[in-house]
């Protein structure tokens, strides 16, 4: 659905997006993560053919960027950073206007469908200016969906919302996943990306890394097992002598063991610890949050780019 090769955008001397390669499949929910100023919005604007790249090429929804821009625009939906609604028009009139610009076949029906889906139907005649932030975001989301786009770009959909509204919108996005709609989600919310996305990319002008959330974390840290011992026995780690253990360390009286396959290796590890006289209380897997990964990458500890 989205293929980009060496996509680049300069603003004067500043290189906002630098040689971005992407390949995103139909039906995929793709998380695009990066700090403020990383170039996320710039990337979305290029892929939605709102601004021209300074270099590189891309095809979006089967159309070539720069040559079939109108076709691209009619096949993608964009939820922009700010909802951008006409305050003096009603919710329904806001949507009807866009439905007609997208030349939707039966505008009234489409508008009704999405107002109902986003639970705004009862407020259809209220002015958009009277809506709360959460409702505005929902209305903007409805607008991005009206023409049933193949690709939906969401630029930080929950950034300006309170936790409750953010949760609602997040659940909505989760429910938008279908087999033939590709979702490109820009966010700084790592938890959101972790929960919603099939694949995520960490990005800061350049692509730092990409993969599905789980294997990304594993590839960064390997698998780790945490063992709680009743009596911490310093020095026990040196006596383990197990070939699959790549690293051990003590954290807060707990033994942290890095290995590659916990399913088969954990039992061996526990047996060995018991042999060595340790009183094992709990054995669990160390959860690495995407946040740890993100911060590490952004601080350049693993900077591969």
């Amino acid at each position, binding site marked *: 659905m989205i293929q980009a090769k060496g996509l680049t955008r300069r603003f004067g001397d500043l290189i906002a997006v630098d040689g971005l390669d992407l390949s995103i499949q139909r039906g995929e929910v793709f998380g695009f993560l990066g700090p403020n100023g990383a170039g996320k919005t710039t990337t979305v604007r290029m892929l939605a053919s709102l601004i021209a790249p300074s270099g590189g090429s891309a095809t979006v929804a089967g159309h070539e960027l720069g040559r079939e821009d109108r076709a691209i625009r009619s096949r993608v939906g964009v939820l922009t950073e700010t909802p951008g609604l006409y305050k003096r028009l009603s919710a329904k009139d806001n949507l009807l206007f866009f439905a007609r610009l*997208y030349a939707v076949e039966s505008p009234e029906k489409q508008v009704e469908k999405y107002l109902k889906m986003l639970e705004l139907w009862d407020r259809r005649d209220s002015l958009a200016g009277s809506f709360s932030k959460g409702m505005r975001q929902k209305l903007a989301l409805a607008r991005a969906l009206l023409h049933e786009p193949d690709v939906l770009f969401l630029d930080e959909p929950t950034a300006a919302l309170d936790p409750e509204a953010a949760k609602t919108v997040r659940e909505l996005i989760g429910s938008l996943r279908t087999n033939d709609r590709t979702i490109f989600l820009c966010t700084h919310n790592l938890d959101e990306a972790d929960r919603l996305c099939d694949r995520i990319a960490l990005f800061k002008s350049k692509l730092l890394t990409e993969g599905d959330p789980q294997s990304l974390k594993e590839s960064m840290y390997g698998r780790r097992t945490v063992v709680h011992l009743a009596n911490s026995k310093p020095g026990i780690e040196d006596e383990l002598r197990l070939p699959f253990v790549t690293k051990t360390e003590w954290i807060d009286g707990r033994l942290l063991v890095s290995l590659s396959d916990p399913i088969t290796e954990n039992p061996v590890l526990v047996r060995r610890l018991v042999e060595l006289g340790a009183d094992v209380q709990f054995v669990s897997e160390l959860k690495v949050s995407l946040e740890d990964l993100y911060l590490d990458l952004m601080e350049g500890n693993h900077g591969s780019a």
Partner: protein
Amino acid sequence: MARLKVLLLKEWRESLRNKMVLFGVIFLPIVMVGASIFMLTTGEAESDPVARIALFNMSLLYFMVLPVVIPLAIAVYSIVGEKEQTTLEPLLATPVTDTELFLGKALASAIPAILVNWISFGVFLLTTRFLVGGFLMQTLTLPWLTSIFGVSPLLAMFSVGVTMIVSSRASDARAAYQFSSLAVLPGLIPMIVYSAMKTLVDLRLVLLEGGLLLLGCFIVLRIAIRLFRREQILTRWK
């Protein structure tokens, strides 16, 4: 061009709900036309046909001023309003072309300006015809008719172009309004020339005005068209 119609209808729907715009489009013409009718039907002019004809002649000048001032409010709000509401980006994400967008904005203010001007003119003629008398109509010479029906649409287009340029640079409606008001002043030169000529407006002068305005429109609209490209709007506008 179906999209152009959609754009225009939306502009007008929004304008109808904006008091500032309504003031410029409806209140201003009412005041101007009302004031001239009032002057023509009262006071010292009442008994003196010559004075009345002179006054009538003066009043016709308003129909060279209205096309310059009516588009200001519509154009300012239709552009700065989009900026303030951050609606430009979603709008530009649709398949609308740059030309459609430009025409939508330009015609949204030019059409009402021209129509309201002509309607005001009609109302003014009818009212004075019945309240004062048919003899006034002799003042409506070919140069005047050419001005009101030929030159005033150009005045409106000039004003629209200037206001679009100013509005694309401004982030605040009030500032845009004030600055545009200054910038359209050259459009009022015809009025100043006419009033200096009193009743002796001749066709050559009118055609000269028209020619100069055509050139002005061409330059101003060319600049405006360049400013109204997606890329420009999203990366250069303030």
